[in-house]
């Protein structure tokens, strides 16, 4: 019995380690490649431990050719307003869905569910016409207005779960005392739902930060490129500098992972259940 148990444990650890290696390796590989000299990358056998060390790729990235900082700034200009719009709209709607006396609630929640399933690639052609109609082609404002349609449905969904989990008695007591719905929302419900709203905000930011196909279709000039477009352009040349691309990947992912690391607990619970439950 004891040996059997030990055997099981060995297998579990073995499988966990294999999983982690497969999971982490691409990030490790990009990380070390970003410090290898271009000559090592292009002419030598790939090594797991680099032979050379250089910061040249990072210097190049912030130079006048690759303009990583410029694209990052554009991405920030888009992602921050998208986050604010998403939080505002979805908090109100989620609260309305969780607590409001609204006719056609079911129809509305089905509409939210359907828009949650709508992928950006389904939206790109329809939204392109709206962009043209509003005269927002090659304009970052076009991205700010269209990205929330990707972020809002999921945020409403996640926040609705949060609001429902707050005991309704607290709110009813306040309403009986004569407080208005708005008062109840701002003074009682929002503080309790703060972790959920925070999570929804971070999620919206990262989604906007990562969005690619809409930007690809709606932005023409490279002065307005967001970071994903910039990165894609680094490999759209004949002579790809993989050290540089690796450095760009590493810098791109770093902020998102730092922001997310302390939040993973919320995410594992909130997202996975929210994704399948209604």
């Amino acid at each position: 019995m004891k040996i059997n148990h030990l055997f099981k444990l060995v297998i579990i650890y073995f499988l966990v380690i294999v999983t982690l290696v497969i999971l982490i390796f691409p990030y490790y590989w990009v990380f070390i490649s970003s410090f290898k000299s271009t000559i090592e990358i292009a002419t030598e056998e790939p090594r797991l431990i680099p032979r050379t060390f250089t910061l040249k790729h990072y210097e190049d990235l912030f130079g006048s050719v690759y303009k990583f900082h410029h694209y990052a700034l554009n991405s920030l200009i888009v992602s921050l307003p998208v986050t604010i719009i998403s939080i505002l709209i979805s908090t109100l709607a989620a609260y309305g869905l969780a607590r409001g006396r609204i006719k056609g609630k079911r129809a509305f929640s089905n509409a939210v569910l359907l828009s949650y399933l709508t992928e950006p690639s389904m939206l790109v052609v329809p939204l392109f016409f709206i962009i043209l109609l509003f005269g927002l082609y090659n304009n970052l404002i076009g991205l700010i207005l269209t990205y929330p349609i990707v972020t809002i449905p999921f945020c409403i969904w996640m926040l609705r779960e949060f609001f429902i989990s707050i005991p309704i008695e607290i709110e009813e007591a306040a309403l009986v005392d004569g407080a208005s719905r708005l008062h109840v929302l701002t003074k009682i419900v929002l503080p309790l739902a703060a972790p959920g709203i925070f999570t929804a905000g971070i999620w919206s930011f990262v989604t906007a930060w990562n969005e690619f196909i809409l930007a690809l279709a709606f932005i023409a000039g490279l002065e307005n490129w967001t970071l994903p477009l910039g990165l894609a352009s680094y490999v759209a040349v004949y002579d790809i500098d993989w050290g540089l691309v690796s450095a760009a990947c590493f810098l791109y992912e770093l902020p998102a992972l730092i922001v997310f690391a302390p939040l993973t607990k919320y995410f594992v619970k909130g997202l996975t259940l929210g994704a399948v439950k209604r």
Partner: protein
Amino acid sequence: MPKINYDYLLIMPALLWIAIFLIFPFFYVIVNSFIYKNNVTLDNYVTVFKTPRFFSSLYRTFLWTIGNVVFQLGLGLGLAILLNQNFKGVSAVRSLMLIPWLSSNVIVALQWKWIFHGTCGIATKLLMDIGITSSPISFFAPNVALLSCIIVNVWRWTPFTALVFLAGLQVIPLHLYESALIDGASVFQRFLKITLPLLKPIIAVWALITFIRTFNGFEIVWILTGGGPGEATLLLPIHMYTTTFLLGRFNEGSAISVLMTLMSAIFMILYVRTAQRSE
């Protein structure tokens, strides 16, 4: 004084946003797909169906989607069972599973494009070192490019799928397993008779979500291969994108977009139904 119901104001902004940026655009594109040179016509659809690339890319998209769904769900279920075991650091390992999901599609694709590089890539080198192959592998050769793309997408989504299934596993009451154990049921029997039936609703819903997402997947393949070499990885969304934005055939592109959305809509409605039933 009649009491005004302010609750409607709460959902108004969301409703407006969905109306302007979702419903209206879809109507617009449907109308546009029936217009060619200022005439109301079916010409755009005729053009779409006359292009062999449409059907070949549709077929390829189904291969790509089914390959992804099968591997993501199969491996995801296995991984979920592994993460449901008791071992040291299990919660840290679970958190790490979010990393690929948090990463941008663009980054995932770039990383693997580099790993799968034909001459300087580490994948080829490692496989040669282990002795699986003696000559360098070109992962993006016409006959294997689609498979390579599937591997990358499976890598990206399997860990998150595992977390979803894990959430389902954790609500299965333990006493079911205990009484099965007393009855002498084997591991395999417990899996077939308890785990799988109780997990079925989540698996069904997640299979539909995965199907819709993958069927409309664009970014990973676009960065990895751009649809090539030749048409080896030309998926329907890529065909739609190139027709519309690179060739500038907006009406034809609208028609493809409408068809793509219609095909997805079947699965979306199925999803809403399934989700309602499990409520």
